[in-house]
């Protein structure tokens, strides 16, 4: 049973990339649902660096077919989609979410908040599977259908999956680190809550044989920028993200990985 705070709300904390985001609600069932969904990524609610207060409403109270919009209202970020309205103040680190009692809305809010925080800190969320092998992280990026889940399913036993859908990457020291995320794709299970230095980035392409072809930095940067999840159009943040992407491809080997669905493709990933 989730713990009730002095204010009468129930809360939990979801820590991705070492950043705990506290989530509170008056409904203990909702918090319990989140704790099941994000098991493996839970932290102490009291330690949360960012806090989101969730107001649960009936599903019909929010417009169903609205597209995602992220903007700025003064210093607060505002986010809305058919199934939620949210705002978040990066100074006070407090935010509110108005949504129905489904996990998908808060899942999206978490992704948006992480993408904003990461952009400031020299990192990004990427449409990519990622995994640790031999203490190093390998990232496999591609749009839906490119093979992120397929290559995750083919992973041999010495590989630890960080995610099959959304990778979390952040600058660290002389390079970049990839962190596990609970954001699952078709594999249907969260990644492991671990991190490792990024050894290589592969852009996936299905083919009739297995081959890894090094990409020139400019081509790698174009592809990387296409696959980064970023929702805001604020100039300083977009410029920062651009610099991060260019820096990443200058420091991390990037390949196009053509593969046919077979476990042998992992022979190329070392």
């Amino acid at each position, binding site marked *: 049973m989730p713990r009730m705070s002095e204010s009468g709300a129930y809360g939990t904390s979801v820590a991705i990339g070492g950043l705990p985001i506290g989530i509170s609600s008056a409904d203990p069932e909702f918090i319990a649902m989140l704790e099941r969904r994000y098991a493996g990524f839970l932290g102490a609610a009291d330690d949360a660096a960012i806090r989101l207060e969730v107001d649960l409403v009936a599903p019909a109270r929010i417009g169903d077919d609205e597209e995602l919009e992220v903007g700025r209202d003064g210093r607060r970020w505002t986010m809305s989609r058919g199934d939620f309205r949210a705002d978040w103040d990066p100074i006070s680190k407090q935010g509110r979410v108005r949504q129905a009692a489904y996990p998908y809305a808060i899942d999206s809010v978490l992704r948006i908040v992480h993408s904003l925080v990461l952009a400031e800190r020299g990192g990004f969320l990427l449409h990519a599977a990622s995994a640790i092998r031999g203490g190093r992280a390998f990232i496999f990026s591609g749009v839906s259908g490119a093979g992120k889940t397929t290559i995750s399913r083919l992973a041999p036993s010495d590989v630890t999956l960080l995610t099959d859908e959304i990778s979390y990457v952040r600058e660290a020291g002389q390079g970049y680190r990839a962190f596990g995320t609970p954001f699952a794709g078709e594999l249907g299970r969260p990644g492991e809550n671990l991190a490792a230095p990024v050894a290589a980035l592969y852009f996936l392409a299905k083919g009739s044989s297995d081959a890894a072809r090094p990409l020139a930095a400019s081509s790698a940067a*174009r592809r990387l920028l296409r696959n980064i999840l970023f929702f805001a159009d604020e100039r300083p943040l977009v410029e920062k993200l651009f610099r991060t992407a260019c820096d990443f491809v200058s420091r991390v080997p990037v390949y196009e990985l053509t593969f046919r669905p077979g476990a042998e493709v992992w022979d190329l990933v070392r």
Partner: protein
Amino acid sequence: MSETYIKRSRDTAARMLGDEMIIMSVKDSRVFTLNPTASIIWGAADGITTLREIVARDLVPEFEIDTEAAYQDALELVGQLAQEGILMVTDHPIPAEQP
């Protein structure tokens, strides 16, 4: 004969990677890659130097090409970049913006 002046749009972020310039439109996140020749023109697009001067000063000695042919190619290129909204092209100098 009127001159052509070019200036990089302030709504762009750019960085040289290898021998190519990669440019992103900050307004809509579109990404462009310029080859070495176009990268030189982009780098010299200060709004003050004419395109003809840029071609004669930076391209002709570097690539040992015919000046007039290079200038016509450069005109076509800057027209395309202007259409994409990442380069300003005018017939008069474009002063530096105040900070």
